[in-house]
């Protein structure tokens, strides 16, 4: 139940102390010249103390005020004296406590039944830098950071329109994290927005440390290995996706912004594709697609062709493999499993380790370990090459790495036990799953299945900007045109 402020200053202080017993909450008591007791409540380290002193405490120091004109007179005096843009009133104790926890200062005057929230929040944030997971040679270098307000500014900088709506709500019983729903009014499908809001309300989370928690809430198929929510660290990409008719979600504390709906083809598109020639963008996308296919099935086909269908390999390669593997202590299956396992371990270790150790580790792992294993007759060179090629190829689509890595293991297991039949069967299974696993009414394989011919212009192929004059049909946007020639 929401309690309101009492008409007794001390009672209000006591009530707030009960609500905010933490040691980092400061209650700074002072009096006006008139003797009216005042208290400033704030969380240590979260407010701009300089600003608070200059714009709040100093003007109040000399304030001559008799509380005989009632609340209206006080408000008038405060408005005149405190020239602070973010000043708001609250009559609720709980609301006031939340604002203090959020980094704002609360000002209590005498026995008034109202508190004044002063927007002096100053949270520690890192600088806006190039996103480490989404670097580009061409295009903007800015990336989202952990502060949602900064991220909103970065977005507003790119979409200077009143149609850009940023609706912030609070999620997380304990964390009370700000979750900001971003969309372009008049472009987004209202049903999509409503559905996202509905899904966000279906779960009461305890804590939201990262946007991935919100992504899980938005995901329809919770056990799917394919993600159904897009992610980006780049404000330019985020803004472009909103302009296509998607809804974006910014989460306080996370530099990863979410976009929905999501189609699998987005994993093969990079932000940079839109800043280079469309021909080159198409070439790069095809390259990524081929690389990912190779990454997924090369180890499985290499193993299954050795075990089940040797005809698949050229004679020369067969002889090389036979020569390399004839004296190995491990079976072909065991060998490739060991190499892939070591590769995954190296990858995981190099990600987790401090950077200065990580580079040394990857050199030791990739070169020394591999070379030593081959020289010792423990592993064969073709297997190491196959796994290395597969590993490199998968990183051409960084957002697909998690899913791809899992699929590669599945294909390898099935290929090793059932041969090429198992691989083809698994591919058929994955494809059939993908054509039916709609999320937010968008099939993951669109615009290929179902075919949306106009959307194919920006799928694996990338047409010129002029050809992409219509928004993607997939998102059912109300405003279809995005480019007009004058």
């Amino acid at each position, binding site marked *: 139940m929401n309690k309101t402020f009492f008409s007794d200053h001390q009672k209000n202080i006591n009530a707030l102390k009960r609500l905010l017993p933490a040691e980092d909450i400061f209650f700074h008591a002072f009096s006006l010249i008139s003797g009216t007791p005042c208290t400033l409540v704030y969380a240590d380290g979260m407010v701009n103390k300089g600003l608070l002193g200059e714009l709040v405490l100093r003007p109040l120091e000399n304030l001559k005020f008799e509380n005989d004109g009632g609340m209206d007179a006080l408000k008038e005096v405060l408005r005149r004296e405190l020239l602070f843009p973010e000043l708001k009133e609250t009559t609720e104790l709980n609301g006031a406590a939340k604002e203090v926890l959020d980094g704002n200062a609360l000002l209590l005057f005498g026995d008034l039944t109202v508190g004044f929230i002063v927007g002096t929040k100053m949270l520690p944030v890192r600088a806006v830098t190039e996103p480490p997971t989404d670097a580009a040679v061409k295009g903007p270098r800015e990336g989202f950071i952990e502060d949602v307000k900064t991220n909103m500014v970065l977005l507003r900088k790119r979409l200077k329109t009143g149609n850009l709506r940023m609706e912030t709500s609070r999620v997380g019983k304990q964390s009370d994290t700000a979750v900001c729903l971003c969309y372009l009014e008049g472009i987004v499908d209202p049903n999509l927005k409503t559905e996202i809001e509905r899904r966000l309300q279906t779960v009461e989370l305890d804590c939201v440390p990262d946007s991935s928690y919100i992504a899980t809430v938005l995901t329809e198929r919770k056990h799917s290995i394919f993600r159904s929510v897009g992610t980006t660290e780049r404000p330019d990409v985020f803004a472009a996706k909103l302009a296509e008719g998607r809804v974006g979600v910014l989460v306080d504390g996370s530099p990863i912004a979410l976009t929905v709906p999501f189609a699998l083809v987005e994993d093969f598109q990079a932000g940079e594709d839109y800043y280079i020639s469309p021909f080159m963008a198409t070439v790069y996308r095809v390259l990524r697609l081929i690389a990912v296919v190779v990454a997924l099935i090369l180890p499985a086909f290499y193993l299954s062709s050795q075990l*089940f*269908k*040797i*005809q*698949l*390999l*050229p*004679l*020369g*390669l*067969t002889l090389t493999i036979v020569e390399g593997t004839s004296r190995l202590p491990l079976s072909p299956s065991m060998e490739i499993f060991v190499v892939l396992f070591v590769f995954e371990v190296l990858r995981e270790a190099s990600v987790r380790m401090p950077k200065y150790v990580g580079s040394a580790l990857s050199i030791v792992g990739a070169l020394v370990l591999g070379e030593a294993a081959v020289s010792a007759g423990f592993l064969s060179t073709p297997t190491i090459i196959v796994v290395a090629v597969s590993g490199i190829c998968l990183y051409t689509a960084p957002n697909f790495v998690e899913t791809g890595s899992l699929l590669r293991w599945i294909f390898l297991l099935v290929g090793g036990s*059932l*041969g*090429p*039949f*198992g*691989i*083809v*069967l698994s*591919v*058929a*299974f994955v*494809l*059939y*799953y993908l*054509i*039916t696993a709609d999320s937010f009414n968008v*099939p993951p*394989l669109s615009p*290929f*299945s*179902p*075919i949306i011919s106009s959307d194919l212009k920006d799928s694996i192929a990338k047409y010129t900007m002029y050809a992409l004059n219509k928004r993607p049909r997939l998102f059912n946007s109300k405003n279809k045109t995005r480019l007009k020639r004058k």
Partner: protein
Amino acid sequence: MKRTAINARQLGFFLAFLLPVGKLSELPSLLSGKVGGDLLLPAFLGLTVEFLSLFALFSFTKKTGMGPLAYAEKKNAKLGRVLRVALAAVLLVYSLPFLLDLEKFCNVTFSDTEPTFFSFAPFFILCGFICTKGIKAVGRSADLCPVLFFLPFAMLTVLAFSSADLSSLLPVFEKPLFTNVATFFQTAPFFSSGLLFLPLFDGYHYHEGDEKKIFPLYFTGAAAVLLFLALFYGLYGPLAVSEHYAITKIGMFFPALSTLGRTDLFFVYLITVVLFFFTALPVQLAVGELQKGFQLQNSLLLSTLINLALFFAVLFLNRRYNTVYPFFIKTLAPLYLVVGFLLPLLVYLGILLKRRGQVRVERRNKHAR
């Protein structure tokens, strides 16, 4: 515009890129064995019959706004449901020779040695999964088929072209016409796709100009089948009869493959994905019809039970392949033709006569007024 489970483009792609795949496996050697170089004639006859059933069902749907089964159900709910269950039974029987073929095809295509039957068993997991999806999924899978079927098919055709001697097809009508017609009847299941069209047209609604998309795409698929048969016979000649599962063997004589390895098999593997979809289709449609017939909500249980039953049936029949296969292909051919060809024609004629009767009555009433 009314939203449909399967639209004209998807239906067209189904006819052009998914349906032909069932005719590229065992049919070429069967036809070669019976009529040799005349194999194109019974195939052409079969494709004509298949087209007629497609035309009949398409026209029926165009005139009534719904498929024949939905129409029957609308007129008499009980009769409609009985028809659905009966069609499901026929579809399940119809699926058996294709399942038996697929098992043998997989052995030849994916292994150097003969694996046990149980290594084929996982197909029924895929089939079971597919069966839980409706007609919408059929349409969407058809959308993938231009990539999965057309491109590899084109590549295999190019690989085969250099080694094929098309003069082996001459002279035409080497065998008497009767033999050609009899061969068509003996290979009728491969051309009885009307069985599949019957439930598929339940999910389709006619829109203006759809015939311009659907029929040309059917002819494309039919042309691809005829081209394949011609190339296959051109490649193997009289030996074609013993070359089962033609799609695996069509590209293998391309000279470069001796140094590159059987890379043509990668194209075959892509087509195999389509073949999996095709083989699962009758079962998928049967499950859908049973679900509608018995008004069941849970398709997962039904799909599991049916696929389990099919697994054991194929396991059992596989041991008596030489006896059982001709039974399904030859003996049951009239059943497939009646349900897949005659029934569509009759329902079309029926609706045509009914419309004419209505027009006549309207005219008479007009005169009377």
